[in-house]
């Protein structure tokens, strides 16, 4: 009833409608031809629509480009954080300081080169909007940093400390990127998997006490997280990680148990080159 189009517009439509053949051809031509040519043929309505969609297109292009760059930065952080983790796993009784020194350097390189790129990209905005794009990298980074810290000091690196180390990377005039609790907790959950490997490695190296320390540490993390996880935002991913974490804890416990129970047979054999006895050691390792 309130159809009040301008008369010019009406005429345009009427012309369109006078011939069925012409109008469908026109409609098809519109669909297939380059949208950039549109405005000339379109009514004022359509021109306004085009102008509005130009703005939306610009917004989407900018956002998608930024997202792509963030994803790339995140992937670089992941790859290089993994290298730090592998470096830490090269640790043994004899080369501890040397290995950790290299790991520290590698970790600093990840922070300076790759985290800084992410920080610059996210300067001031979109921390939550683009979280999906950078979350994997940040989790891996948390994992590497906490693993290194544990080997160095036996403590869990706090989120506060990590975030403090990120501050110098960003321009002080912007709101700095701070890792959120969710990504930190997800990273710590992955840390327990690495600690399990580390513990098994230490046992096979004869460092039973160190393995037990790891065991207590991982158990404590698991216990703390059981309280935190139900309150997390989207906790499907985290619930899966909790299951994996429990498996890791149990694996370390079983390994410690085996060595403890068979300790009398096992420990004296360490370093023994007699091939007849290596079988016993191997059995422990499989657990």
């Amino acid at each position, binding site marked *: 009833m309130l159809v009040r189009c301008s008369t010019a517009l009406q005429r345009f439509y009427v012309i369109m409608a006078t011939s069925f053949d012409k109008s469908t051809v026109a409609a098809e031509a519109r*669909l297939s031809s380059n949208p950039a040519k549109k405005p000339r043929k379109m009514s004022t309505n359509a021109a306004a629509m085009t102008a509005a969609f130009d703005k939306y297109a610009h917004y989407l292009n900018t956002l998608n480009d930024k997202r792509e760059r963030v994803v790339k930065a995140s992937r670089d952080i992941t790859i290089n954080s993994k290298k730090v983790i592998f470096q830490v796993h090269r640790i043994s009784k004899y080369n501890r300081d040397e290995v950790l020194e290299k790991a520290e350097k590698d970790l600093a390189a990840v922070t300076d080169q790759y985290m800084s790129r992410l920080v610059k990209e996210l300067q001031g905005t979109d921390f939550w909007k683009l979280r999906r794009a950078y979350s994997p990298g940040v989790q891996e980074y948390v994992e590497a940093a906490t693993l290194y810290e544990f080997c160095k000091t036996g403590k869990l690196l706090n989120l506060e400390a990590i975030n403090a180390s990120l501050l110098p990377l960003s321009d002080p005039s912007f709101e700095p990127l701070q890792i959120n609790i969710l990504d930190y907790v997800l990273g710590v959950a992955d840390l327990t998997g690495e600690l399990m490997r580390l513990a098994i490695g230490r046992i096979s190296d004869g460092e039973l006490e160190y393995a037990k320390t790891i065991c207590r540490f991982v158990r404590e993390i698991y216990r703390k997280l059981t309280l935190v996880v139900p309150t997390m935002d989207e906790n499907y991913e985290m619930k899966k990680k909790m299951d994996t974490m429990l498996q890791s804890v149990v694996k370390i416990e079983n390994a410690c148990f085996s060595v403890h129970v068979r300790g009398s047979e096992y420990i004296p054999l360490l370093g023994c080159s007699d091939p007849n006895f290596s079988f016993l050691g191997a059995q422990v390792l499989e657990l």
Partner: protein
Amino acid sequence: MADAGDSSSSSSSSSMEKQFEGFLQQLEQSGNLRDRIRAVAAEIESSTRLMHSCLLLVHQSRPIPEVAARAEAQIDVLKGLYRRLAEILLELPGQYYRYHGDWRTETQTAISLIAFLHWLQTENLLEHSEVEQKLGLDSSEFGLDIEDYLIGICFMSNELPRYVVNQVTTGDYDCPRKVLAFLTDLHASFRMLNLRNDFLRKKFDGMKYDLRRVEEVYYDVKIRGLAPTGDSTGDQGTQA
């Protein structure tokens, strides 16, 4: 190394304790906030449902002003609800997108209905800035996400084929031409966007089926000589 671990384990576990207690507190706070947001989102949802049921009357060829008056009452309700939502989120600057998922779908539906109503009244597309205006949103504080807006517009497009079919059935033979022209322009405009492989892309891909359906209806009307020829401004008013 082992004793180093031992001696530090007590102090480490207490600092760990403190950190995780802090997390628990913050996450619980965040959870409470989310509950408040969800409560408002639920109200938005029920308001859009009312609005939808009002708008459904156009399929029963009720006059547009009557339908619009009822539906517009809900826009005011929505405006109030979005103000409440904005107030909650202004407590946490910069965390708009942390909770975005909790009101997204409801907002998309609201946009589709408001845009459909606007189209019924003016035969124009309701622009992003106009929706913000209608809902009393301010993009500097609490704005409307452009992707949500575009998805809402795609939903609106889904309504049009049904509207055309029912209008023709009640004797408004000019309707298909109008809708076809509008939808053709809209589809062309969407083609200007570089979309990712996401939900918006999927909805846009669906729009061509709406367009095709409207073309079919227009064809059916046209080929039987039912479509009005010449200046049809006169009877349009009474038919709609």
